[in-house]
């Protein structure tokens, strides 16, 4: 119990210090772009709790979740295939880096053109942007599988499905999850960007509207909301990771006992 408490204290002391510092500094300053934290929190309550939460936050989060889900599945699958099939890797790697370097400002109009501006457009944009970290990490992870394990799977005639699900994916697991975590961050950022165009609702649309019309306090309350959501979603992510990679964490913790 005391261990629990001290862990919580350990996690919270710095954020508390920062919040306090921010509170004190912003309370005095009369900067239009850095309103007092107190005002931001008041606006936060007015803006997001709870009506807008249902009408604006949930749809945004849903888009992000679906987009991230698609990015995860597609990213792992594509990464795996590219890692294993040299010809495809050589053919697609340049294209992939080409697309990755293409700025959203150029891509978004294409998506709008093809998909309109409903949720499917946003989900596609999120998935497209978030898929790459996972592809790259999966590719690298699969390619670093221990050669001894590959020998074993060949010697024991494991079929392709077994090799993938029992050997390659688990062994790349730690790298894949590192990539997924980056993808998650990208999904978040792009969730906002996808609401820049063609949207009337959503966290991003509201925050950007606030930004464009100099409603600075509203913008800050959007930033606070984003940060909170990001933190919570990452907690969920770590929970899922812990379940899948318990063997990995266990092996490493065993050594530290």
């Amino acid at each position, binding site marked *: 119990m005391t261990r629990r408490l001290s862990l919580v204290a350990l996690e919270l002391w710095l954020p508390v210090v920062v919040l306090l510092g921010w509170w004190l500094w912003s309370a005095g300053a009369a900067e*239009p*772009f850095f309103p007092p934290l107190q005002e931001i929190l008041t606006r936060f309550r007015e803006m997001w709790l709870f009506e807008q939460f249902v009408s604006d936050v949930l749809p945004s989060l849903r888009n992000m979740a679906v987009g991230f889900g698609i990015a995860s599945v597609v990213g792992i699958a594509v990464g795996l295939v590219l890692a294993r099939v040299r010809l495809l890797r050589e053919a697609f790697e340049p294209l992939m880096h080409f697309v990755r370097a293409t700025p959203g*400002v150029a891509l*978004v*109009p294409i998506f*709008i*053109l093809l998909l*309109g*501006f409903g949720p499917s457009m946003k989900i596609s944009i999120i998935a497209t942007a978030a898929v790459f970290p996972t592809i790259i990490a999966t590719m690298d992870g699969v390619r670093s599988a221990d050669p001894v394990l590959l020998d074993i799977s060949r010697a024991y005639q494991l079929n392709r499905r077994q090799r993938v699900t029992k050997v390659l994916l688990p062994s790349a697991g730690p790298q894949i999850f590192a990539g997924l975590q980056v993808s998650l961050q990208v999904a978040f950022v792009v969730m906002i960007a996808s609401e*820049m*165009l*063609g*949207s*009337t609702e959503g966290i991003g*649309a509201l925050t*950007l*509207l606030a*930004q*464009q*019309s*100099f*409603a*600075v306090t509203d913008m800050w309350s959007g930033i606070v909301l984003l940060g909170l959501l990001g933190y919570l979603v990452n907690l969920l992510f770590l929970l899922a990771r812990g379940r899948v990679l318990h063997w990995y964490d266990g092996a490493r913790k065993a050594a530290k006992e």
Partner: protein
Amino acid sequence: GGGGEERKTEDGLTVVTVAYTPIFSVGALQLGIDQGFFEEQGLQVELKQVANPPSGIAAVAGDEVDFNYTPSIPFLNAIANGVQLEIVGAADGYAEGTKAEVEADPAVGLKHDDTAVVVPASSGIESAADLEGKTVSVPARGAQLEVTIAAAIEAAGGDPAKVNWITLDFPSAVSSLKSGRVDAAGLVVPFVTQAVQAGGRIITSPGVEFFDDGAIGLWVSSAALAKEDPELVKSFEAAVEATNEYAAAHVAEAQQAAATVLKTDLAVVQAGSVPAFPTTVDPADVQSVADRMKELGYLKKDIDAASLVFGS
């Protein structure tokens, strides 16, 4: 930006940084620089392009640039939210009598106003009032096009609160109009022309309708700069005045300068509307914009425009 000694060049000129948004009227500024109006005032201009007026306003407010171009609407938005700015000169606007001319003959709208609301030719939308309940695209929420279109709708007897505004960049707006994903699009040239060529129809020119004659585009500085270095601001004001006077008399040259700055063909610029270059800002013009915005619900409080003009 920033004050101090490093502002001086070897020739004793003071360096000022000026942020602008890439639109055709920037040609006048370039022309004024080329003509030496700024040098005459002891200024050397360093141009910084920014994507949109709000980021320029942020740069001015943070003392990172000295002057910035902004239309009156984002300017008023910023003022209403506590950003301390002052108007130091006019940038563009409508010549006297424009409104009357366009009201008499809507067909000449594009000649003066580079904004327009376009609908598919086959749609049943005839006037701004019909936009009620429709989906209308604008390049940015709460900015000039939305406010002016809202005003047009209200003037025509519709309810702007019932419009579904949607943010779209111009190329996407043109193609979305074509594919029927939006009912109407608020556009500027050359996209108005593109949309019309692709089967669109102009129903209104919201800019002229909204603004009275006089300045729309403003040159602004931070209130702090105006207070600390009024001499500098005064020289800039004078240079802008001289510039606009010259540009108004030499529109073709201004267009040529715009083509150079924007790296585009002269023809593209000429296809646009012909801006007017008012020499001074009449506080009443800004005031009427502020009042209209307040009426339409875009501003939450009253603004005294006169107090915002430099030297007032």
